[in-house]
């Protein structure tokens, strides 16, 4: 597979080169993005400078007929965090880009002048042209325009106004199966980097191309069947997620007292049943929407959905657990329609919903709005989209907003907002928030088969260092899975069913003609994490940055009245292997 490099700052205008993968051959997804960023981006560069790069890479199995292989990784130095970032998304572009034969698109340099560019990639090659009529278009209007120009068989990777304005909470949108810009590489400000390069949209068209062919087609098909069977028979991937989506978590996390409420003040929200996944699914069905829907072709878990408004018209994709929490409980809001509207605005402006919700929570604590005021929350998001002075503050995330308005209680690590689990109630997640290379990140340490985690020695989880060891192993395993292009929700089925984990290994081995084992997967994950840690160290990050905000150690969280108790020494040992 080749790599497309686009030098946006070349003299005479942006220059496209299609080059062999070279030293990056055999890598995909996060392994590829982190390799490029750690090798080619000076760690001390300004994230919006010509020295930063934006790497968009499908996974190792993307573009094949393997189920669940549609995730795409976006790598960059983060404007929000200053660390290396890998931001991950679903949608169609991963499959399409891989079928077009590319391991990655790398945007580098910085365009001179004020032109905004669109990139078109099909089987005939790559074209980049200026198109200033796209300036400040929302993602929805932009995609409609691209459909008008290039037809309805395309996929789009785009930024909204937030990315053009280079806001640190800006996301990159990826179109779904219905060609709506509803899937996002949200975290860390990738949209701002794309905006700083002057690229508004990348249009992909794989018309005339087929799925990538495995080395052993017959065994690959068998492995895929075992893979799909395993996913479908597991109650999480085969029943819970399809029926209720990720917001199936709301009631459970709330019951655990870990559902951050009113800017992480409380662990339970009284209005949870009004915004739960169960209630959301029933509302969608009653209005003619669909709570069981895949974000990319080949997804058999189908945790996504379609949300209609009161009049039965399409409003947005089914808001995810994180979005419902961020704009809901964290802001004291229990109105699903208001939350869905905020999700629509976030998608259109191109903003990370987690960062936006956490930022509104901080803004509410600052007195800009009352907790529970949904209309005020919607107005604040619209300020971001318009790029007003207030909007530019909010669009740069919770840490900046907290600083500007003098708020102490800002729930961030390395300037990235915490997601929807309070670390005081679930301390192990706090370990991952603190020590992840990405900033506060709930997907950085995921569950995989216990046989992976026992490779290299088994640690008694009841010992004090058990939580640290678990977090370390989970981060390693996640880094490996992020490199395959597989959706992380495979994790539970893989955890419970060794034969399903074996099916994943068989997919990789029969496609590439390899003999990977669980050990190899672990080693890949370790390699990726080491690269990321090294980059962050060279960027100036030390152990002092692997900490939660102090108030999590002092302020008790109701209802369990717990504080974060993992010691700094334990946090510092996470990455000792």
């Amino acid at each position, binding site marked *: 597979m080749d790599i497309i490099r686009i030098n946006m700052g070349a003299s005479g205008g942006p220059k496209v080169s299609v080059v062999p993968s070279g030293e990056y051959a055999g890598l995909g997804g996060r392994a590829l993005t982190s390799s490029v960023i750690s090798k080619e981006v000076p760690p001390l560069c300004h994230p919006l400078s010509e020295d930063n790069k934006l790497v968009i890479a499908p996974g190792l199995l993307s573009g094949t007929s393997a189920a669940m292989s549609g995730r795409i990784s976006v790598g960059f130095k983060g404007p929000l965090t200053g660390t290396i970032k890998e931001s991950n998304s679903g949608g169609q572009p991963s499959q399409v880009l891989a079928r077009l034969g590319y391991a990655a698109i790398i945007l580098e340099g910085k365009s001179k002048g004020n032109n905004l560019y669109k990139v078109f990639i099909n089987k005939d090659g790559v074209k980049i042209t200026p198109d200033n009529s796209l300036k400040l278009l929302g993602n929805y209007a932009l995609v409609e325009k691209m459909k008008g120009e290039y037809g309805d068989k395309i996929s789009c990777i785009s930024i909204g106004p937030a990315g053009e304005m280079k806001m640190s909470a800006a996301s990159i949108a990826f179109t779904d199966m219905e060609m709506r810009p509803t899937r996002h590489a949200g975290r860390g400000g990738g949209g701002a980097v794309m905006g700083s390069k002057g690229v508004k949209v990348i249009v992909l068209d794989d018309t005339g191309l087929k799925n990538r062919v495995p080395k052993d087609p017959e065994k690959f098909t068998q492995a895929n069947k075992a893979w799909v069977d395993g996913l479908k028979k597991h*109650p*999480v*991937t085969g*029943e*819970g*997620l399809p*029926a*209720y989506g*990720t917001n*199936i*978590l709301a*009631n*459970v*996390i709330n*019951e*655990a*007292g*870990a559902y951050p409420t009113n800017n992480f003040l409380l662990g*339970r929200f009284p209005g*949870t*049943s*009004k915004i*739960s*996944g*169960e*209630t959301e699914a*029933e509302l969608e069905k*009653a209005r003619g929407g669909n709570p069981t829907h895949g974000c990319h072709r080949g997804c058999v878990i189908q*945790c996504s959905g379609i949300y209609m408004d009161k009049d039965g018209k399409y409003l947005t994709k089914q808001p995810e657990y994180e979005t419902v929490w961020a704009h809901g409980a964290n802001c004291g809001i229990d109105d699903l329609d208001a939350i869905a509207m905020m999700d629509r605005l976030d998608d259109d402006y191109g903003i990370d919903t987690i960062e936006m919700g956490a930022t509104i929570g901080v803004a509410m604590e600052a007195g800009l709005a009352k907790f529970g005021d949904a209309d005020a929350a919607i107005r604040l998001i619209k300020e971001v989209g318009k790029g007003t002075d207030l909007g530019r503050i909010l669009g740069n995330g919770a840490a900046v907003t907290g600083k500007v308005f003098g708020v102490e209680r800002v729930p961030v690590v390395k300037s990235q907002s915490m997601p929807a*689990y309070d670390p005081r*109630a*679930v*301390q*192990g*997640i706090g*370990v*991952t928030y603190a020590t992840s290379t990405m900033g506060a990140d*709930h*997907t950085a*340490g*995921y*569950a995989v088969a*216990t046989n992976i*985690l026992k490779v290299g020695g088994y640690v008694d*989880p*009841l010992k004090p260092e*058990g*939580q640290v060891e*678990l*977090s370390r192993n*989970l981060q390693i395993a996640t880094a490996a899975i992020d490199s395959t292009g597989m959706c*992380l*929700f495979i*994790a*539970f089925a893989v*955890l419970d069913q060794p034969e399903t984990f074996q099916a994943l290994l068989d997919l990789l081995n029969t496609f590439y003609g390899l003999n990977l084992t669980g050990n190899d997967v672990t080693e890949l994950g370790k390699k990726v994490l080491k690269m990321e840690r090294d980059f962050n160290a060279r960027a100036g990050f030390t152990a002092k940055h692997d900490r939660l905000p102090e108030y999590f150690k002092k302020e008790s969280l109701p*209802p*369990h009245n*717990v504080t974060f*108790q993992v010691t700094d020494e334990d946090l510092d040992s996470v990455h000792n292997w």
Partner: protein
Amino acid sequence: MTRREKSNGKTIFQSTSPRHISLTVEASLLPAFSQLLQNGFWIKGTVGCSVKSFLCEQIGLSPEYLEKRIQTIFLDGQPVDNVETATLRDGATLSLSAAMPGLAGAILRRGGYYAPMRDQISFKGETTSASMQSGKVLVKLFNIPLQEVGPIFLRHGIWVESDKFKDVLKARADDFQRGCGDVLADGRQFEFKQFLEMDWGMGDIFLQVKTV
């Protein structure tokens, strides 16, 4: 039960005995009770027993169902790992869920490998059979158990606050008007519209919901 007319023409039923309401509805109306079941309802029975004993011997769930389908359990907000030693006190809250996705789901899972990551909030009680007595438990149902076991609880009967039950009916009054058959209140039959206009006052009611 005694009947009294208020000055506004509404009928008030005053009762010193528990109020028993039984509805027969179309199956499509069962989701209307979803938030009631998520927020919790009371079951009266024997407490001081283990979670497993309560669910299998008193409620009638099979041990296989409990093992395979209810993989996340909270007792008074604390994740339970051992259903044979976790004991129900009078007035306890018992929440039932399927296995959950993601890292948090794996951590909260009953007896899961990642349970140490939430050790500070885990349930650590033990069985004491000597304290068994009559009492009540607040049961909350989420996701798959809500779908699968919710109708069973509704059929057998649950105790709920009357104003919360009224809210359920009012929120979808037109649907209930169309899809609700007989309404029995303390053994007396009412038309749905008449029933909806009644003023039941405060307090708990024993609610049974059957489907046609």
